């Protein structure tokens, strides 16, 4: 059986670790069920530095060292692969997750130590390649869903792997392979009183993907959003599309999993990491969330404060929870039931209150709906956490004025994220030339610098430079319309009015609903 080391890279280094590596722990669980020998080193939780990582690489004779995560972990991952090669030269070095799926050929070029990359969903590909490695079969040319390095050093991308049909076929994540005490210690967050007092919070996932086609977003090639096509040079390329294979766990799978976490790990809070609970609820025609709420109560997970309708305090028992919502898709009755069942706060990606920006965004919301959503959510008892973005391609002084005016009306204080073109998103392919230009021809430098969108990397605004956006962010934070008017006056006075960023067509993105492949029913893990 293959001896596998899975490494979770450091994410958001400036903050404490708050989120378990959900994908990696699911893969560990699947591999163990197939009989493989698996260890996880959660570098994000431990934060011990690269010296310790080298010791981890030397701790065993690993057949496979697998490292992967989101694009913003690129710098860590690159260094980790270099150290893996140095300390464990005989192991197969495998990459996976968002950072390689969004740009497999670039990554294989920039990190020559990688032997094999799993592109897109890995639930089937991971055990499949472990099985091959076990049999000493290192020819991956007929394995779908991978990018592999040929003896000649060149990398080849194979056709997309069909995603699994039924998420309930999945085992639970291998929680016991994670340093949970570190995550429990960091349970509290500042989104609601209940999450602020959480002592044993755990991430749970109810669905994969999202039906919307927001231009800044991306679905990791795991949502029917990815196909593979040949480019003009005859090389396979990933192509992201508006195609979607919507998949969600059954309410009973989700609630049973939370019940298990409550009984075995004594959790008091469940954070749903789903991209958008409301789009899944809409896909189920409004049944899914209601059933989850009913079962939550039936299984004894409803927190005491909600049962008795009393203020929450530290003696409260049961499991509170939070998730993500959508201004155009939420329904008051559902929100009310969610509140009753213990939901404390919902993240709303409102992004802007400008009609023109919202029309072009692909989110399916309007300024009026964005405005009313805050009140609707609040009156259900749930706290809305609205997210705002600044620096859209179409951003103007007027659009900012619309956003500030609405924020004043609704009592929102926010320091907006900067519009950032993460690899995989429609924005990335539309503005790739402009990004490369801003990074003086060095795309890898852009990728290595990507972090939170709370700092400027490359801009995609047609009108504003990075320097201007930093000032405008401060003005939005202060909701200062006087300063905004002054900035506009000076801007018109000082600048030749020419567009600074231009969109382009790209072979890697189709703004059409071309679905990626999905398996037929009946997979067993």
């Amino acid at each position: 059986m293959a001896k596998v080391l899975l490494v979770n890279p450091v994410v958001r280094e400036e903050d404490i670790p708050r989120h378990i590596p959900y994908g990696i722990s699911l893969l560990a669980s699947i591999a163990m069920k197939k009989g493989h020998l698996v260890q996880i080193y959660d570098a994000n939780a431990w934060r011990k530095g690269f010296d310790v990582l080298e010791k981890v690489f030397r701790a065993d004779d690993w057949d496979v060292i697998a490292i992967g995560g989101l694009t913003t972990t690129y710098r860590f991952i690159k260094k980790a692969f270099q150290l893996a090669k140095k300390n464990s030269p005989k192991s197969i070095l495998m990459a996976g997750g968002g950072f390689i799926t969004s740009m497999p050929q670039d990554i294989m070029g920039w990190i020559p130590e990688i032997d094999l990359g799993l592109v897109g969903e890995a639930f089937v590909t991971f055990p499949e390649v472990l099985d091959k490695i076990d049999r000493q079969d290192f020819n991956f040319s007929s394995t779908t869903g991978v990018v592999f390095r040929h003896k000649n050093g060149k990398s080849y991308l194979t056709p997309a792997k069909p995603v699994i049909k039924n998420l309930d076929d999945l085992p639970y994540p291998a929680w016991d392979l994670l340093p949970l005490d570190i995550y429990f210690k960091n349970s509290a967050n500042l989104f609601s009183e209940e999450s602020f007092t959480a002592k044993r919070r755990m991430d749970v996932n109810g669905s994969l993907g999202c039906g919307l086609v927001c231009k800044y977003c991306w679905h990791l090639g795991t949502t029917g959003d990815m196909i593979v096509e040949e480019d003009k040079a005859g090389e396979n390329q990933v192509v992201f599309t508006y195609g979607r294979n919507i998949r969600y766990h059954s309410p009973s799978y989700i609630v049973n999993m939370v019940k298990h976490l409550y009984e075995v790990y004594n959790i008091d809070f469940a954070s749903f990491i789903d991209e958008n609970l409301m789009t899944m609820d809409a896909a189920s025609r409004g049944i899914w969330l209601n059933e989850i709420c009913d079962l939550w109560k039936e299984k004894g997970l409803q927190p005491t404060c909600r049962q008795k309708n009393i203020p929450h305090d530290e003696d409260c028992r049961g499991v509170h929870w939070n998730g993500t919502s959508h201004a155009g898709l939420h329904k008051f009755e559902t929100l009310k039931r969610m509140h009753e069942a213990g939901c404390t706060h919902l993240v709303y990606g409102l992004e802007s209150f400008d009609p023109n920006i919202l029309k072009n965004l692909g989110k399916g919301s309007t300024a009026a709906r964005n405005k009313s959503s805050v009140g609707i959510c609040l009156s259900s008892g749930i706290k809305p956490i609205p997210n705002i973005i600044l620096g859209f391609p179409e951003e103007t002084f007027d659009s900012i004025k619309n956003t500030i005016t609405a924020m004043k009306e609704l009592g929102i204080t926010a320091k907006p994220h900067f519009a950032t073109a993460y690899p995989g998103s429609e924005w990335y392919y539309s503005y790739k030339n402009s990004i490369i230009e801003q990074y003086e021809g060095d795309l890898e430098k852009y990728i290595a610098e990507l972090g939170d969108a709370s700092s400027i990397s490359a801009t995609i605004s047609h009108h504003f430079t990075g320097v201007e956006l930093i000032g405008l962010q401060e003005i939005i934070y202060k909701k200062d319309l006087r300063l905004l008017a002054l900035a506009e006056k000076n801007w018109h006075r000082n600048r030749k009015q020419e567009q600074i960023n231009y969109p382009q067509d790209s072979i890697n993105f189709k703004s059409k609903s071309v679905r990626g492949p999905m398996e037929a029913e009946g997979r067993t893990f």
Partner: protein
Amino acid sequence: MEELLKGNYKVTKNIEIEAEEKSENNLTINFKKVALNSIGGSMVYVERNTLVWEGEEEAADKKNEIKSS
């Protein structure tokens, strides 16, 4: 010892971390992290511990003094 690696079997080698070095490092790293996160106004952070000063500016200043006197 902290269980850095968790799995379904026992790994062949133990991972030793030098306790002293680790805690010193941790304090420096943690302090830097907290300090950098609160930068603004009078809160500033100097990363260097040593900086070699060669006294050139002083010499230059002296020259200026002589000239101007």
